[in-house]
């Protein structure tokens, strides 16, 4: 078991990576759902979507916990890689949507049909799609930001301090590790030389 401070530093680093970084955006209120559909493997330009999911979508979800984000990876490599952003209709009350997504159904088509949640109120959602094929995760992010007019999250002073503290510690620890590595290598060498010398003496005495 590692010591508690060590454990907590590692946890802090992990949680900071969830909170801050690329993709830390606060979406406007009318975004109800984000659905991505891309292939299981990266061939044919499906790498960007996966990277986006692994890196940016985590932070997006942290800052927008109420927005349902689903992924469908049953597409084949030839299919388009699409991200559909569902907006609530401008005049509808913003409450009726959540029940539809509580059990994320395998949405088969994510194109403009906008009928996956049939039980929502009469005005259907406005759905806009982003083509993600052959695009990197950062390109997808800028496209999403442009589409939804989301604004990025800036680190607070405390978070900046925390980042600085962790960074300082990383530097210090790398330096110390190098130092002690040298010391251990030297001690090992001395020991070997000593062993060798002892062996020589013993063989001559015999």
């Amino acid at each position, binding site marked *: 078991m590692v010591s508690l401070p060590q454990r907590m530093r590692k946890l802090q680093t992990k949680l900071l990576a969830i909170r801050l970084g690329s993709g830390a955006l606060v979406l406007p209120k009318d975004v109800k759902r984000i659905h991505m559909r891309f292939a299981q493997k990266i061939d044919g330009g499906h790498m960007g979507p996966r990277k986006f999911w692994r890196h940016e979508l*985590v932070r997006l979800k942290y800052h927008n916990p109420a927005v349902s984000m689903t992924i469908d990876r049953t597409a084949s490599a030839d299919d388009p890689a699409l991200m559909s952003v569902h907006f609530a209709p401008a005049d509808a009350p913003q409450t009726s949507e959540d029940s539809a997504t509580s059990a994320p159904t395998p949405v088969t088509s994510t194109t403009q049909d906008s009928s996956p949640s049939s039980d929502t109120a009469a005005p259907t959602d406005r759905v806009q799609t982003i083509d993600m094929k052959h695009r990197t995760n950062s390109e997808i992010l800028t496209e999403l930001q442009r589409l939804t007019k989301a604004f990025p999250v800036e680190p607070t002073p405390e978070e900046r301090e925390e980042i600085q503290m962790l960074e300082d510690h990383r530097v210090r620890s790398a330096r110390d590790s190098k130092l002690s590595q040298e010391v251990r290598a030297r001690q090992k060498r001395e020991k070997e030389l000593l062993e060798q010398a002892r062996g020589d003496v013993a063989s001559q005495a015999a």
Partner: protein
Amino acid sequence: MTAPRYCPACLSGLTSASSTLLRSTTTRTTTIPSAITHQIRTATQSQNALKYRRKDIPASQKKKKSRSTFLQPDLKNAIQFSLVDAMRYIRASEVGRPPTSSKYELHLRLRTAKNGAVVRNRLRLPHPVKTDLRICVIAPPDSAQAKAAIASGAVLVGEESVFTAVKEGRVEFDRCLCHTDSLVALQKANLGRVLGPRGLMPSVKTNTVVRDVGSAVREMAGASEYRERFGVVRMAIGQLGMGAEELQRNIRAFVDSVKRDMAGLSDQTAKDLHEVVLSSTNGPGLSLDGRFASEDGLGSKELGVA
């Protein structure tokens, strides 16, 4: 005595680093370069140090006394979270996963001795995590007991038919119960070698040999087992789609049950709850501080669905 075999170049590098290991050999050699004739002051050479040096401890005492309890660090400096905050982090790191495959897990660290009795029990959560358990019941077929078992959802019921199937290696169930009257037949069938390693062998100790099979199956269908391993009790506590209130009820039921078990064992070994950690299939482990929501954090409403 002749000079040893190593080269002087190596030695000069070593002695300038005030080696303690090589001192005995360097004093013997006569080929020390003049560059390192400075005084070497180390602990073994100084008279004072010799005086204060620790006497050789007998080998029997030298061995460190091993710890009899699990090491549990003080949680004063630990970062702890309220339930809703922890769920927010976990949901973020589970984003886009198939909703049926990801589960919340709860780890209860106990202050306990390394040996002695362990906490082990079954529990039916208020909101079950897994409902598609396949249960096998060993009871004479066509009996009233067998019918009751089938009625309450057992997949496989019988005596000889089950034994032959298991001997052929077809173990198509996740839990195994046995009626009290069939226990003798079961022990004669010699299935311990097959079922034992999978933890499926019914025994009185694990409460899987029962008289009322029907209600036991019903009890087991939504229940999950837990046991203490290395001072920690772990269990899947909820599906990722669950709300904060549901998860809270599950956690409360689980913690209460473990506390009851610990109280039951208190005459054998003293146990005490040390830390509650919420984790998930792919998420980080976050220590809970017992609050539902923090003042500046989200409420359970804003958390929304997974």
